[in-house]
């Protein structure tokens, strides 16, 4: 029973991750790319909680704690990234990722 439950959660996580991944591969818009990475994050977060719950039971909250940690980081990172996106947009008036190919160095 529990095995089945775990697999379901994992499936949800994997689906979220793959959606994010495909989004990241196919879209050009910087904000959408960013949203896609957030989706991948959430997929991983689901995995964390699922594994934590599965392996450690109800007494421990390592998985949940990690996710909270992850969310905080993601939030900080989001503010930074969106700020950057705004700056980039001001430079070139476009959100196309390919517009910044010259950054390859």
């Amino acid at each position, binding site marked *: 029973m529990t095995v089945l439950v775990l697999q379901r959660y994992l499936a949800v996580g994997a689906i979220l991750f793959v959606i994010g*991944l495909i989004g*990241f*591969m*196919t879209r050009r818009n910087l904000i959408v*790319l960013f949203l896609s990475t957030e989706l991948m994050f959430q997929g991983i977060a689901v995995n964390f909680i699922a594994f934590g719950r599965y392996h450690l039971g109800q007494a421990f909250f390592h998985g949940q704690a990690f996710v909270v940690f992850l969310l905080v980081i993601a939030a900080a990172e989001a503010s930074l990234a969106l700020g950057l996106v705004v700056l980039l947009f001001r430079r070139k008036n476009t959100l196309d*990722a*390919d517009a*910044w*190919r*010259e*950054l*390859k*160095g």
Partner: protein
Amino acid sequence: MEGLFAVRISYLIPLLPLIGAIVAGFLGARWLKEKSHWPIWIGVGLSAVLSFVLLFGMIGKWPGHAAAVPKPGEEVSLETRVLSTQLKAMAMSVNWYRWIEAGDFKVEAGALIDPLTAVMLCVVCGIGLLITIFAAGYMKGEKGYFRFFAYLGLFIFAMTVLVMANNFVLLYLGWEGVGLCSYLLIGFYFERPAAREAAKKAFLVNRIGDFGFGLGIMLIFVIFGTVSFFGDGAGTNSGVLELAIPGGNFLGALEPWKRQAIPWIPFLLMLGAFGKSAQFPLYVWLPDAMEGPTPVSALIHAATMVTAGVYMIVRCGTLFVPNSGAMFTIATIGTFTAIFAAVIALRQFDLKKVFAYSTISQLGFMFAAVGLWSPVPGIFHLVTHAFFKALLFLSSGVVMHAMLGHLDMRKMSGLRKVLPKTHLLMLGGCLALAGVPIFAGFWSKDEILVSAWVYNKGIFLVLLFTAFLTAYYTFRLYFRVFQGPVMVPTEAAEGHAHGHDEEHGHEPVDEHLQGQAHAAAEHSHEPAIMIWPLVVLAVGAALAGFLNWPEREKSLGGFLGESPSLILAHLATDARYNARFVLPVPFGAEEMELKAVRDQMHSVHVVVAVLSILAAGLGIYSAYSLHLKNRSRGEELVARYPGLTRALEAKFWVDEVYQAAVVEPLRGLGRLFYAIDRYVVDGIVWMVGFVPQLFGFTLKLSTQRGSLQGYAVTMLLAVVVILLVLFL
């Protein structure tokens, strides 16, 4: 010995001049100024007093003959003799403090007080004091007056440490210390490029010698496990010079490689002695050293420092004597240097250069003496030479002072009338140097010639011929400068900075046209402060020969013979030559007790004395005929041998050979290494850095295109590949 007051406070002998030097050096520039000589006068003066108190105290304790020396042929086992505490009746080692201690390497700062040290101290401090007094007059008004005296004080400090040291490392400290002072004083007029080059040369040539000396000390330590000359005197023979006696238990128990290495020691030490005492391959610095002020030439480059090599070899006799090869080398090099330098001196025109080569030559005599293991004649000659050579240098200093800085004997003549007092003093010095009887140089040179006669007739002949040359070049100088028609230079020499320029620079031209003698008389002051020290030296030059009068109860030789260095070296020869009597005059009275020996020696002495008087007379006569009676004949003689003249004037091109054979190749090597450093060594490093750069550059062109999604695909593929590898 312990009871002597002067022994207990012996540390003051080096310390006082050092304090004087520090006071003069740090307070001189701002506060003492023209009074900067006072700290040095006081410091060196007190040291001189202490030295003489020490010497006379020791003579007072001395019974008058070397009681401890076993009679030749007497059968006493070596160990008993070495252990005999009587050996140290006249010697004492005082440790001041532990200087260096690392593992087994322990070095005390301490003094060895024995007759040899006492005599050397008196020479150093006594002559040092006279010269510092002279210098106060000579250097008056110079820039850096205080500096000069600070250096002099430092020098006396280093020199006293050198002769007082009771171990090799402290000796080395004094050794390098006097080298430093020599460097600073030669370069005293540092604005002259010649002075600065001469100073550098002196230091570097000495460093070559010190390289050998330092290695010698290390080898001594590795073999003997100590660097002290003698043990602590409490019945143990733990000092190097005691352990080194052949046939002793210590040498027998050594590992084979150490026993084989022992013969190297004297050769290494010898290198140091050759450098410091300006012997043949390493003499080149001494003539150039005359760039220093004249009192320095007198003190350092004639009387004291340059004799350090002789002192060192006598001090370490035990290490040298058993090694006949080393002894022969010293004697040969000494003899060769004696004649070589005398030949160069024949054709020098600068007064100080003549005396410089003469010093080298006389040092050669001393080396020949110690090389034949006649330490007493060697030291005796050192003492008398200190007197008359200092006198000669200081007199030529007076001449230079009066002649506006000129020292070229072609520019002056007949100074007898211009500088009457100096003339007499100089004459005394010349007679002593030429080896005219009564004067000091005769007696000491005679003793060296006697040793040479006994050991090696070849060396004897060369030295006798050198004595002839010495008399000739000495009197060539004397006749040219002091006799004949009056001629004095009128233009101040370049770089002459004795304050004359201000006093006499504006002399009207017509005045000196009236008569050169008159103008010269105006210049030539012979101030008392410069003359009185010379008088004392002249008395020494005349009478020092009687110090070692063989018939005296207490002669210099007998006194020196009480030094443990000489006694142990005597034992070392004994052991080697199997009690054969090989020493003519090292122990003064003691040896003379054997009647047969005395008679034999007496006749030798007479023969040698007659021969050397003849040589000196011949030399003086040739000088007289070529340089006074008929000066043009001398020039004709020179013109007849142009090649030889050129070789002599170029000093046999030795400096040029050194430059081309040593300095330039090394410098070229330095440039080559620098090029290697920049291009090869760094190039290899650069190559190492270049490879990853190239790799990265290629990767950048091929994979890094700037497409965000492209990177993501690459990452994804990589993850897939990794997973495949991991799970399949």
